[in-house]
């Protein structure tokens, strides 16, 4: 449980972080809730940790038709953010409140989790269903990537070398919408065996995404059909069970989101 030898640099600015990340095998450290255990188990062995924890980037702001979540906002901050207190954005707070335990929620960050891209993590389903965009920054400048284009494979995203997530931008759903996140968790890890985020708009159109069942979170076609979605099982939860669970959580997320639509009226 002792990490292999590594260097540590606490970044003073994004530019400083980019410079430090130029070193081969350097990795950015945000809240450390996934990376530090991996270091201790020596599953991850970076030569340098670039700690971006002091860069701020943790504001949660509601500006007109957009919710902007700084990459270093913690789950705890998100779970209690007044900005999310609306039926349309309820899925975001609901997801954040269900992450890990209190300690994890107080340290773990939104950007760190999205960049880590664990195939069973919860937030990817929510950002997909709400059609969020990720703001990325690198020495070459800034770009914005749709959540649907961000998650590629387990632990693999659209992030380039020396590129960092700086914010998640969620379009505020039209008034009269409701959203929800529902998951069934592994009893040990708390990670989703299957998790679904649903957005139901006032015109009854829906947007549903699923996580935990395959190699990455995916946005489902209108109506939330799971046909053709890649899923795999494991020793604890066989594929047959996961397929069944996926239909259950999709149904429950849609139901709860619909209730929130009705509650909003």
């Amino acid at each position, binding site marked *: *449980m*002792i990490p*292999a*030898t590594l260097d540590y640099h606490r970044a003073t600015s994004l530019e400083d972080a980019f410079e430090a990340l130029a070193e081969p095998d350097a990795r950015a450290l945000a809240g450390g809730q996934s990376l530090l255990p991996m270091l201790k*188990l020596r599953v991850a062995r970076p030569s340098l940790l670039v700690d971006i924890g002091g860069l701020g980037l943790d504001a949660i702001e509601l500006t007109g038709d957009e919710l902007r979540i700084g990459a270093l906002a913690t789950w705890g901050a998100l779970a209690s953010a007044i900005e999310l207190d609306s039926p349309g954005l309820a899925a975001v707070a609901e997801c954040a409140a269900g992450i890990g335990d209190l300690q994890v929620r107080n340290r773990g960050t939104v950007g760190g989790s999205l960049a880590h891209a664990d195939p069973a993590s919860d937030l990817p389903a929510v950002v997909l269903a709400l059609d969020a965009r990720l703001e990325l920054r690198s020495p070459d400048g800034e770009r914005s990537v749709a959540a649907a284009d961000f998650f590629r494979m387990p632990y693999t995203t659209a992030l380039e070398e020396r590129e960092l997530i700086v914010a998640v931008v969620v379009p505020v759903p039209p008034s009269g919408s409701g959203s929800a996140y529902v998951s*069934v968790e*592994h*009893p*040990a*890890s708390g990670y989703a*065996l299957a998790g679904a985020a649903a957005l139901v708009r006032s015109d009854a159109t829906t947007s549903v995404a699923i996580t935990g069942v395959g190699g990455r979170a995916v946005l489902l076609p209108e109506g939330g059909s799971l046909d053709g979605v890649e899923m795999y099982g494991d*020793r*604890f*939860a*066989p594929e047959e*069970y996961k397929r*069944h*669970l996926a239909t*259950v959580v999709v149904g429950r997320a849609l139901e709860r989101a619909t209730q929130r639509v009705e509650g909003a009226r």
Partner: protein
Amino acid sequence: MSQIGTARPRIDAPDKVTGATRFAGDGHVLGLLHARLLLSTEAHARIRGIDRDAALAAPGVVAVLVAADLPLESAGGDRTSEPLAREEIVFAGQPVAMVVAESAATAEDALELVSIDTEPLDAIVDVEHAMSPGAALARTATDDEAGDDLESIHAGVDKGGADEEEELSGNVLDTITRQEGDTAAAFESSDAVVEGTFRTPWVYQAYIEPQVATAWLEPSGTLVVSTSTQGSFVTRNALARAFGLQLDRVRVVAEPLGGAFGGKFALMEPLVAGATLALERPVRLSLTRTEDFQATNPASAQVTHLKVGARKDGTLTGIEARMIVDRGSNAGWGVEGITSLLVAGPYRWEARDLRGYGVQTNRFTFGAYRAPGAPTAAFAVESLLDELARKLDLDPFELRLKNAVVEGDIGVSGNPFPTIGTVQVLERLREHPLWAQRDSLPENEGIGLAAGYWPGGNEPASAVCRVDPDGTLTVVTSAVDMSGVSTGFVTIAAEAFGVSPDDVRVVTADTLTGPYAGASGGSKVTYTVGTAVLRAAEAARQKLLLAASEELEISPDDLEVVDGEVRAVGAPDRSISVEQIARNTLRFGGRNEPIEGHGGSAQIVGAPSVAAHLSHVRVDPETGEVELLRHVVAQDVGRALNPALVEGQMRGGATQGIGWALYEELAHDEDGRLVTGSFLTYAIPVAEQVPEIDTLIVEVPAPDGPYGAKGIGEAPVVAAPAAVANAVRAAAGVRMHELPMTAPRIWAALSSSAGEEA
């Protein structure tokens, strides 16, 4: 005021909650070296060579030790005699080499530089396959004792007068047969007969403090081992035997224990002792959680085929059990003996045929875990009793009460049961309001009942009680303070001597200085060492009265000890304080013997404890998830010396039973590699998953116990899994035959039962 039955905080609690307790991994030792273990990634292999040159060349590395480097004198394949694998690796996670370095980080770095060259052998992972004739052996190299006859054994089984020989593989190390009467005729005479095959996995003790030990040599050459263990003398004896040392050259100091539950018996000590003897430097080995999962000794997996019958009136008739116990690499002992005894439960049967098989595989080394062999047995028999009650339309309490053993009934062991509170516990639990709710529950909810017992252990023990010049009492024993036993000693000594519990301290001595006590385990400490403490306090009290008699010029028979004073009975103004007597005694020229007593005990009669549970669950029919809504445990504790501690044991046992029921499984892949070796994959019950647990203390005094008390630590875990299983049956209509009852398994059972009905 009597101290017996008064709730008091644990004496070790303030230090533990403020971080003042020094555990075995905390002490500073001059010149300490740190050891790390290279664990086998293969379950079964022959070692061809170990390359340690690169590791030895690393700065700060002092040694890379393999089996041949340890000055072992004993042969054998047990973990004390073979702390590092010799020629043959027999489970994944087995320690193969030990890197010893100036720092723990250096040792961990160097571990990656050691490589093992192995020749793979067949990994024996499936215990049922392992016992069938012709199965490959899980351990091919046999020690002297076992010899070639391990190749194949035959279990001679006498069944109904006809000799029947069962052919088994050499992996079957032990067979137990407990037979009485004619089970075939008993089933013939039954109105209902039910049977089933029940499977339980390997389960981890999950103590908070991973295993840790430190060893050093005194200038005189005495080997000192400071360790997290349940028993100091048993560890000393094992080390002396393993390394061929005289007993007085080994001193074992049991440090405050950070949890053990049966798992801490001489696993780390032979490693640090061997390294210290080889290097003549102090060495500490402190397992990481990941290592502790892989390299220690969890509860064994078990397969139980069980068949039971009953008549319409509820009389239990016959019981047949075939219980296959996966010992892993443990050639020394297994739970096949105890589990085949306990599968009969606290009930009378007209005929029985109970068989236990201890089978070696390439999965871990089996070790004890709170009531070893009992939860697995109770899961099977209590599940089938539940089915019998359904078939015969009997109340589950009535069925059990009708057959409950009472004192004098002859048990499976052939001996009569001593005082046992089966009936009292069941009657008390039946009165709990939860039971009355069972027929008016919302959909998908159910309440289950199960009962079980633990026979309790015995071992001679002694204690010393000393009065200091301030009038306080110091009780010295060598019993490791596990589950609050030392706090129980405070109550016993205060009551027996006649002082306030605040004036009693308990010291845990080591093997050099302490009176004898066996290991803490088997639910025997309060019953045996507690009795010794009682007698030591009484002996000290006699000395006190003699001394007071001299001072007051009153016969000792006319004196009593009240509130720290010795008084004349009926004339309380004629008194002298305990403090005054002690001061007059413990001084130059004093005239009385020191106010000290020695007490011993050799309990012969066991003190079984019965515990019964009600569990209330909700099953999500769509996901198979089980939510525990409420749990009640009633237990015969003999006498609750300190009800707060007793209730703590009852809740803790029930909670660990809930872990067995719903969460815990050490699983291996087909190559014998552990796939649930961390708390990310191995679930234990956490606070939000455990409901309110009601405790009902039932007191049926143990005739030989101190103030009627008995050991109570193990009984409350025994029937908890079965109670949850019976609740799941009531809630969802499915009979689960495998633990843990995970959501995917319950969903699969629900799906297949729906298919059958369709």
